[in-house]
């Protein structure tokens, strides 16, 4: 599903983001990428959604080499990868429903398709009753669930969640992780970037640890080791 072959990313003048990373994530896996701040976790997430390009090496997603992806192809890639960030990136003047629908609107989906898919996505994240609320009228955890619903509308094969619980309390964190597990059970590959020790340890899934841009540990049922 996702393959990094000897991927290096450096930022000018010579700051190393990732160094010679080799990685293979199989379809349907739930993988946690852990490490301290500034070790290259977010760089890896950005490389996955082609927000950054590797300086060296090859990134292949579903057989598609995105190492030198053309700008016009990036939207197609991003429709196949749902993205969830720490800062919720919801539009404050749109309702929950409109925020989720926006992702389909801007990609040219028909009104009928939007009316069909958005309620389904909201049901998956348990927000069908709050569709008419504005982001300021719901909790942080619920806002993050809206973001997840928005990431789901394109029925992505991969979900990349970069510190999705960074701004949440423990209760909301648990809810979000449970939701990601549920999505994973439907067959979606989940790449969770986090430095939350408790989350990683309770997941009992594959853990890849990054330190100073390099993979220092890759365990099938791992724990937070740094």
């Amino acid at each position, binding site marked *: 599903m996702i393959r990094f072959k000897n991927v290096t990313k450096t930022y000018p003048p010579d700051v190393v983001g990732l160094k010679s990373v080799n990685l293979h994530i199989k379809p349907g896996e739930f993988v946690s990428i852990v490490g301290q701040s500034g070790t290259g976790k977010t760089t890896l997430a950005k490389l996955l*959604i082609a927000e950054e390009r590797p300086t060296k090496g090859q990134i292949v997603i579903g057989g598609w080499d995105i190492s030198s992806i053309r*700008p*016009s192809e*990036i*939207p*197609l*890639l*991003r*429709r196949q990868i749902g*993205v969830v960030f720490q800062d919720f*990136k919801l*539009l404050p003047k749109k309702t929950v429903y409109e925020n989720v629908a*926006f*992702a389909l*609107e*801007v*990609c*040219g*989906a*028909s*009104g009928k398709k939007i009316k069909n898919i958005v309620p389904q996505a909201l049901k998956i994240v348990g927000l069908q009753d709050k569709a008419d609320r504005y982001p300021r009228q719901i909790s942080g955890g619920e806002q993050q669930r809206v973001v997840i619903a*928005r*990431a789901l*509308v*394109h029925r992505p094969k991969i979900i990349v969640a970069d510190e999705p619980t960074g701004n949440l309390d423990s209760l909301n964190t648990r809810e979000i992780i449970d939701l990601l597990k549920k999505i994973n059970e439907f067959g979606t590959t989940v790449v969770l970037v986090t430095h939350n020790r408790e989350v990683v340890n309770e997941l009992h899934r594959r853990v890849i640890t990054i330190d100073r841009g390099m993979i220092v540990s890759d365990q099938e049922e791992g724990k937070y080791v740094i």
Partner: protein
Amino acid sequence: MSLVSNLRVVKFAFQDFFRNFWLSVATVSVLLLTLVSVNMLLAVNFLGQRALDAVKSKIDVSVHFKPEVEESRVQTVKITLLSLPEVRDVEYESPAQTLENFSEINKEDELVMKSLGEVGTNPFGSTLVIKARDIENYPKILSALEAPGFSDLIEDKNFEDPRLMIGRIESIASKIQWFGLGASLIFGLITLLIVFNTIRVSIYTHRDEIRIMRLVGASNGFIRGPFYVESLLWAFLSLGLTMAMLYPAINFLQPFIQRFFGTDNVDLIGFYNANFIRVFGLQFLVVALMSLFTTKMATGRYLRD
């Protein structure tokens, strides 16, 4: 892009127009100023041309023949003159007509009229009023009249060189044109800067939406499209407002202009009506291209992929 996407691009453009309403008003106002200055330039150009035509049409040479010269000889001179390529028209005035014209012109001048009465008979001979094809032809016509066959028949030639006056009108018209052109260019440059900044502010206002659009896979065309549509909307609105202001203004000024020129032939509204598509189509094209070009620059700079 699909029809649905195109409609959404237009919808987003209108949303942006009204969300940044005062910014849109400022942008349209500057475009309006540019178009108004261009139209002033156009009107001045038209009126200047009409003024020159009016002056040129009034220029002629009056050749007064000696009273004893018979009409048949004058008619021969007329035919000879008409055969010259430089001559457009020659009008014959009989001695009686010449006297009548002279009396009409000088009817207020008692001394002249008294002298004329004392003479008793008609002191005037025939007159030929010659109009040249071009103002530059008069010296040649005058020299033709100096030929031995003609000069001994002629008592007097009445010709004031109009080139000085024409030169003055042309100089004033040219200065106004340069001023208008300068003003239009300055407004044009200000327009480019304003449009550029408006798009920049608009991109800044929408930075969150644009970021989300990118994340969820909106195409670049979809992200940039509303800005292009909005700039076309500005061009369209500014032209509409220009026309809405221009026609009442010309309607109001037309009688004064016609009185000034002393003729109904100076028809500015007629000029605009006759050249409507050409004049306003071209203006829309230029303003739209200018706005689109600036939008491309601004989105290229501030909406990098």
